[in-house]
């Protein structure tokens, strides 16, 4: 796992209080990890803070899984 993926995973675990082994690349925040719509907004804000990137609303709407988040941040930082 890349450094970014590790940091994303840590944020998700901390914020949603889920087991680490559930936070896999394909895990959906809402369907698999029990997030509500407010959680997803908070996660996006936490990613922005951690990685110093800006995630506009339309991009945020397309970030549905852990893997989506990692991909977006990798691209934004590239």
């Amino acid at each position, binding site marked *: 796992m890349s450094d970014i993926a590790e940091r994303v995973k840590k944020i998700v675990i901390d914020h949603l209080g889920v087991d680490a082994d559930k936070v896999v690349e394909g895990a959906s925040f809402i369907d698999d990890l029990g997030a*509500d719509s*407010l959680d997803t907004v*908070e996660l996006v*804000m936490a990613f922005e803070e951690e990685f110093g990137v800006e995630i506009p609303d339309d991009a945020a709407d397309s970030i549905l899984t852990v893997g989506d988040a990692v991909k977006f941040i990798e691209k934004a930082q590239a």
Partner: protein
Amino acid sequence: MFDLTGRKALVTGATGGIGEEIARLLHKQGATVGLHGTRAEKLEALAAELGDRVKIFPANLADRNEVKSLGEKAEAELEGVDILVNNAGITKDGLFVRMSDEDWDAVLEVNLTATFRLTRELTHPMMRRRFGRIINITSVVGVTGNPGQANYCASKAGMIGFSKSLAQEIASRNVTVNCVAPGFIESAMTGKLNDKQKEGILGAIPMKRMGAGADIASAVVYLASNEAAYVTGQTLHVNGGMAMI
């Protein structure tokens, strides 16, 4: 009951009559209190009187950058704001047909927009901590209307709608959002009324007296307390019965 020991509160407009009473009572119940106002000397005087557990935050709420930095400073210096009381408000009265853009904008900016911006700064940390009490001081006229105060009434009604929406969004995070709506309260503002005006007002109040700042402060303390944990999205009217809504 209503013990606020360990809680940190920020009160805007804490040098006005009602705001000062709110700050005093929150402090008396054990909270650490951040006092916001426009005049540093008045804030310093009140802070000196209250003693420990007090910080002051002078800022001009008509300046959007100052509102933002007020939120940031209060969050940092109080080490987390648990209770936010949006109390600061201004009036620029005049009959509607003669109301200028400037008077409309000034009142909406301070009463409603500053409330929105300051609350936005402080809501996210409250959500993260899974505790918060947001208390917006509106007015009976935000519900009933009042001739000569279209701007003020619009701003106060706006605060009520704002509070209800926010209350629904963040209830699951244990952050409550409520309003307190004072009726006629003895203050510098009502002190300017003449006897005839006062008589007219008292005739409309079943309790036959104006309210005191402490009457409003007591309602705020209740909503700030652990005992009010299940109350959100409400407007608590404190008006001696002049409007039963």
